[in-house]
């Protein structure tokens, strides 16, 4: 499938046909993004497939987080941040339209952050937070949600005896899985993960990665990572960004085995970044 490197394709994503993504959930088209006057993303177009793991890789500051945060409009919280061109469609709906209810969008597109950030509440309350926001009061429903979500986040066995202990009393890896449990408790369609393992030790990282494999069966996952092996291990497709531009987007094994772009190759082989 990958064509040999052609001189004309150097430095651009058009060198190869963008991968045909079946049943795309998210479609990003010609996206430009600005923080105030500085442009952080240049003309990004890519599609994210259902129930796959899509990884964003690239050197620091290349705009991975920015793009990720566009997907559930977390950038709305930042003054001066705006999309200046293009559109993001999730299941065909432009999420930046005026009549989009951001809260509803975020219920469908959950997010796990780089630094684990459980609320200073009990484990139980952390998990049911999103449900309580939606006005769920039924105790049995909440209890069920806690168990399924914690099981889903592979944390249940470790915490089932102390659900009412503070979420902050958990270890770093457990906290991150608690954040994942909290996110899946409201049953989103898409889960965005921004370097979820960068603050974790290798064992905790392995657990989260294993979790990602399971989550893939039910959710569409977009993960930003610094860790090349992680992208290789977890993801189905990988997008490589550099200086706010999408350089290459292809099935993961192609990106790592036969990158079509020399910059991609240089990055995945560890020569810069």
């Amino acid at each position: 499938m990958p064509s040999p490197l052609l001189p004309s394709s150097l430095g651009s994503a058009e060198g190869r046909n963008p991968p045909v993504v079946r049943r795309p959930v998210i479609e990003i088209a010609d996206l430009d993004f600005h923080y105030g006057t500085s442009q952080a993303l240049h003309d990004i177009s890519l599609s994210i497939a259902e129930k796959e793991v899509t990884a964003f890789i690239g050197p620091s500051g290349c705009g991975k987080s920015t793009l990720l945060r566009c997907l559930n409009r977390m950038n709305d919280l930042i003054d001066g941040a705006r999309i200046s061109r293009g559109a993001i469609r999730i299941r065909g709906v432009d999420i930046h339209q005026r009549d989009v209810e951001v809260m509803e969008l975020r219920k469908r597109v959950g997010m796990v952050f780089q630094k684990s950030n459980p609320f200073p509440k009990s484990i139980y309350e952390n998990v049911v937070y999103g449900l309580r926001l939606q006005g769920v009061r039924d105790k049995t429903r909440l209890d069920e949600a806690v168990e399924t979500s914690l099981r889903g986040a592979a944390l249940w066995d470790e915490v089932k005896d102390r659900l009412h202990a503070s979420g902050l009393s958990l270890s770093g890896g457990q906290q991150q899985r608690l954040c994942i449990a909290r996110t899946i408790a409201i049953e989103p369609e898409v889960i965005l993960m921004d370097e979820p393992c960068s603050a974790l030790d290798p064992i905790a990282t392995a657990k989260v990665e294993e979790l990602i494999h399971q989550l893939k069966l039910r959710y569409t996952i977009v993960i930003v990572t610094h860790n090349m092996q992680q992208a290789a291990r977890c993801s189905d497709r990988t997008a490589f960004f550099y200086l706010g531009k999408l350089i290459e987007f292809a099935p993961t094994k192609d990106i790592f085995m036969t990158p079509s772009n020399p910059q991609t190759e240089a990055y995945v082989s560890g020569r810069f970044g």
Partner: protein
Amino acid sequence: MADTSKAPSFPITKRRLRFFGLTSDELVQLFFRGNAMVSVLVLALITLFLFREGLEFFGQNQQNLQVYRRAGLDYVDHMRWQEQDHTALNRYLLDVRMKVMADLTGRGGLSVEAANQRLEAFDQYSIRFDDAIAPLRGLVSELSETASAIKTKYYINEDKRTERRQLLAAGRADEAARVEVIQVDFARELEPILASRDAYLAINRDLARELQELASAARAVPGVPVERMDRFGTLVVQYVGGFPQIEQRLATWDYREDVSLLRSFSAFIFGRQWLTASFWQDWYGVLPLFVGSLMVSMIALTLAVPLGVGAAIYVNQIASPTEQRLIKPCIEFIAAFPSVVLGFFGIAVLGEFLRSISGAAWLDWVPGFPLAERLNALTAGCLLGLIAVPTIFTLAEDALQNVPRSFKEASFALGATRLQTIVRVIIPTALSGIISAVLLGLGRVIGETMVVLLCAGNRIEIPDFTAGIAAFFQPVHTMTGIIAQEMGEVVRGEIHYRALFVVGIVLFFLSLTINFTAQKILRRYRQQPL
């Protein structure tokens, strides 16, 4: 340090300039340590001074209460209170008359003369009621004079004793010898008072009989509402029912009984009167001042907590940067006002304003409205609230600022609205910080002096809490206010002077407790945010 006379093989020592054997580093350290020590020392000295000046009060008050008993004032007071209770009943009758009068001339459309005519029988009754107390009143005033005289005599002799002691100390023995001091013999002096007992009992018997008659005649008095007169009858019967108890107390009264230090202490803490420079007897009861301080502070907090915390939440969580830049300095600027200026504003503007709106018709339902006094607990409380706002605002804003941004992001990412995020995550996380902000605001308010002195109305009396919410519209006096007001006019070392110091100690402990609690809450919050 190392000996530098011979060249070392491993040259790492250096000759340093020394002052008094200290290097410059050590000098700087000493300077800072000195500064810290001075602060600690000054604090210790102030505390020590406060206690040294204050604690002697209790001994003096014990003496004060002892003389009160020895000189028979205590004895006479029992009768005096009996007389005062009668006066209160008299006031009840006056009130009945006023209401009826207003009714007759107002709705009834009668002329004043005609109305007076209608009330002729009632007036007769009132006069008879008033006359009944005359014998007791005579006796009380007679005995009061005697008791006062004994007390005066005692104190004059005490003064002389002091004078002689001072002269002796100054080595002027002959002058000292000329100062004549006698021992006041209370037993003999009290004889006339105690001898009056039979006369008192006789008077009491007549009084009881007369009042009983009046009580049963009460409901038959024409021209006034029967229910009110019925009530009056009951009150009179109750009043008369208390006579035997008074007689009993007088019978067992003994001037030799000692007043304990504990009694002196409880008379201060639970005393309901703060009465100084009186002709009869001085009382130093902190309760009315304490209640006044507390009430004013409560009003202030009721106002300042929603304002301060609300503003902090708004500025920290909702306001745009421009608004933040505008609001924050404005609120903090309130703190820059000298409180005397605020007090002035309170007298000139706020008091007047509150009184005029309290007169508005649509506020008629509020008990105590329209306000009788321009300066009262409410006026002072409102201004104190204003003073507490910057403290509460600044500290609460700090607490909110300390909530990690990641909590907010996590909440939003789970689909929360801004309001939900504030209520469910931000405020609970910052809660201990907010509580301690409120406590420190309370500390600020309790210690505030100028505003309460100017605006609280300065009536030394426990507000009448039976009036319900209207109690908050009565003038009060406060602990800080009384110190500021009276400290200038007392003689150093005197009981009154020391009493003010004890009030200071009470304030000191109150502030200490509040600050300590606030610190404790803050510390717990820093250690384990939950």
